[in-house]
């Protein structure tokens, strides 16, 4: 007898997706993780457009990590043209990027993930109920999120889609008075963050089962690193790939990404799946908070560093546990805030020299940046009129897609009986949804529609085409 159970739609994720589980005689027969957002063909719609449009057009890929796309695009163009923007402009961009991390991570943590962890009843695992049970925590989360938005607005001109990064620099200065207001409020926000962080850490530290309740899949990891010590940096640096044991497989700058990353296409799935080229299509890579804390040596900010230490006690390197994602986001949230404070307190940030005029010309350039969900690549070929002739964007969620699928499969195998039984189904399905949520997948970021299938062959899980 075959039971088909659909979790449709997946809730508390960004965008739309579903899971379809087939169970035969209490054994898992098949599982599909599907993104139901339609493909939107961004790479195509960029061709023929003025290249300076790319920072503004590509940010519409994602309403949450729009800052990352905006900055990745402008960095790639400047790479193509060999342009170095003024120091203040780079600092303003770093400030904007950190603001993006604070909004995105606080949004995911408080609205999407923590309602699962805070002991709320099954019928009301949501932010409104969280706010009801822990009003101070809820208010702190809203305030943190709002502050991230203010930083983005002060540097980007507005929120949810920014306007200020152009090849050669920034179009908007940060004035001294606005800077001072942000510094003052920022100090308070950092204190609120510690309270919020302690709340989440307590949950994990008191119940270590939260950390280890899922079987985990071994993979490679990739993140941006800076300098010989492989320091943590979310704005600039080299891509670094490590294997499941932590061994470095490759370290490369954006212009060489083709040597290490390729994208696979399957007949019955329409998201492209990036893989580590030397290992072939099985060389899947995890990206995002878990990957960053695995790949980079340490966070260079003192408060975030303390929380990173606490995190590493629960999830030592190289951590392959999916639940590490949710907790890894917390030291990163604080790192974002500390980077904001460091940039604001540096007087270069209010400098007037924010732009150099740049002539349009031909060229080819690529960039890396860490989006909140993982490493993001933009790559453009530009003709001599300054129009885009080729665009390639590798969004972080595309790396994680096959891993979400594999994790779901491994877990559904264990819960198959519970999923089949209507009495225990709701709880078992909730556990599956939590896996998807931990990754914070950005379904609209994956650009193309996804439909994966997994089969099990001799105990080895392989991602295969659907037949």
């Amino acid at each position, binding site marked *: 007898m075959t039971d088909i159970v659909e979790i449709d739609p997946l809730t508390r994720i960004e965008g739309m997706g579903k899971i379809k589980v087939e169970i035969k005689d209490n054994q898992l027969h098949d599982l599909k993780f599907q993104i139901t957002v*339609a493909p939107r063909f961004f790479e195509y719609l960029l061709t023929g457009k003025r290249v300076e449009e790319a920072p503004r057009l590509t940010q*519409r890929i994602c*309403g949450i990590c*729009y800052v990352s796309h905006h900055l990745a695009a402008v960095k790639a163009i400047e790479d193509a043209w060999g342009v170095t923007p003024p120091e203040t402009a780079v600092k303003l961009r770093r400030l904007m990027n950190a603001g993006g991390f604070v909004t995105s991570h606080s949004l995911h943590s408080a609205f999407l993930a923590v309602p699962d962890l805070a002991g709320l009843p099954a019928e009301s695992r949501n932010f409104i109920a969280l706010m009801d049970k822990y009003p101070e925590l809820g208010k702190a989360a809203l305030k943190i999120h709002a502050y991230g938005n203010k930083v983005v607005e002060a540097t980007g001109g507005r*929120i949810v889609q920014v*306007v200020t990064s152009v090849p050669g620099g920034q179009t908007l200065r940060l004035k001294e008075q606005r800077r001072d207001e942000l510094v003052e409020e920022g100090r308070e926000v950092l204190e609120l963050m510690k309270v919020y962080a302690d709340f989440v850490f307590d949950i994990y530290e008191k119940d270590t089962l939260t950390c280890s309740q899922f079987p985990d899949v071994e993979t490679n990891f990739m993140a941006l690193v800076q300098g010989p010590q492989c320091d943590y940096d979310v704005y600039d640096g080299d891509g670094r790939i490590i294997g499941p044991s932590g061994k470095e497989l490759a370290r490369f700058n954006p212009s060489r990404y083709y040597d290490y990353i390729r*994208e696979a296409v399957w007949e019955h799935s329409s998201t492209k799946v990036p893989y580590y080229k030397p290992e072939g299509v099985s060389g899947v890579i995890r990206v995002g908070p878990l990957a960053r804390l695995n790949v980079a040596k340490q966070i260079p900010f003192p408060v975030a560093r303390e929380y990173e230490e606490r995190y590493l006690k629960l999830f030592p390197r190289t951590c392959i546990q999916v639940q590490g994602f949710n907790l890894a986001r917390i030291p990163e949230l604080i790192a974002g805030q500390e980077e904001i404070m460091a940039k604001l307190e540096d007087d270069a940030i209010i400098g007037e020299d924010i732009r150099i005029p*740049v002539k349009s010309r031909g060229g080819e350039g690529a960039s890396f940046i860490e989006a909140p969900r993982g490493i993001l690549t933009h790559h453009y070929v530009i003709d001599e009129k300054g129009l885009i002739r080729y665009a390639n964007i590798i969004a972080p969620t595309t790396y994680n897609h096959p891993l979400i699928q594999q994790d779901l499969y491994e877990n559904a195998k264990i819960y198959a009986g519970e999923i089949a039984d209507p009495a225990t189904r709701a709880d078992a399905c909730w556990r599956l949804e939590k896996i998807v949520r931990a990754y914070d997948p950005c379904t609209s970021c994956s650009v193309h529609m996804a439909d994966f299938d997994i089969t099990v062959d001799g105990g080895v899980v392989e991602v295969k085409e659907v037949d």
Partner: protein
Amino acid sequence: MARILLIGLAGDSGCQVAALGLHEALVDILVANEPIYAPTLLDVKEIPDDIDVAIVEGGIRNTHEEEIIKDIREKSKIVIALGACAAFGGIPGLANLRDGKELMNEIYNNHRGTDKGTIPTHLESLPEQHPIKHFVKVDYIIPGCPPEVTDIAYTLTSLLSGQEPEYNSTQVCDDCPRERLGEYETSLKRIHEEIPDPDRCLLEQGYFCMGPATMGGCGAPCPQSGNTCEGCRGSCLDVDDQGMAMIDAMTGLLTQLKDEFDPNLYSAMLYRFTYAESVVSELARRKR
């Protein structure tokens, strides 16, 4: 207590994030009413009956989304299109410039760095991106990419208190503090090539600013931040086609031009957000 639905279709969730910008005010609206379906916030899986206000973000690009919007319309008293994708097709509508099959080949089979030989065949994609009004009656739109939080709050509070919200009847230029002198530059400029005068109208200086052809009410944040208006709020009230309105607004500039006009440099810029509902896209569809 109104029963509220909030959903995102073919879009990027940015409108819902923009709505979150209301922070406590949004929580107050939700708590004072009855949010019954909102996949980004709540775990309700079935779209319930008897919806008072359905707020829909994103356009329609596959049959799955088409079914959902029809289901929502059937069950709802009021349907609001939130943001440019739902209201006019948005930036993804620019992909309508080319045939769907050709596009698939380009992206999956002829793209550097992507393995060749396979084109996904299972898609139930529609050939074009559509605003939701293509399939169902829409009662109100909240324009913009992103929509302004003040517009979201105004529209919701009006509707929830039984009042008709009114659309803004101004253009972005009415919100813009830049000075207009009625004098135009003799060449068209690109934003990174020169540094514009911070106090003068960008269009008069030769930059392609969509302000005169775009519905006001946003406070003109883009020109105030040193960049051009992209036209994300769609055409002004009582104007059918945003691109034609822009050509009209540019007459002063175009007649002054000394350089040769190269149309390749302006691909889709008249219709960044409204191509899917434009008169030219209708002509292109008929020709195809």
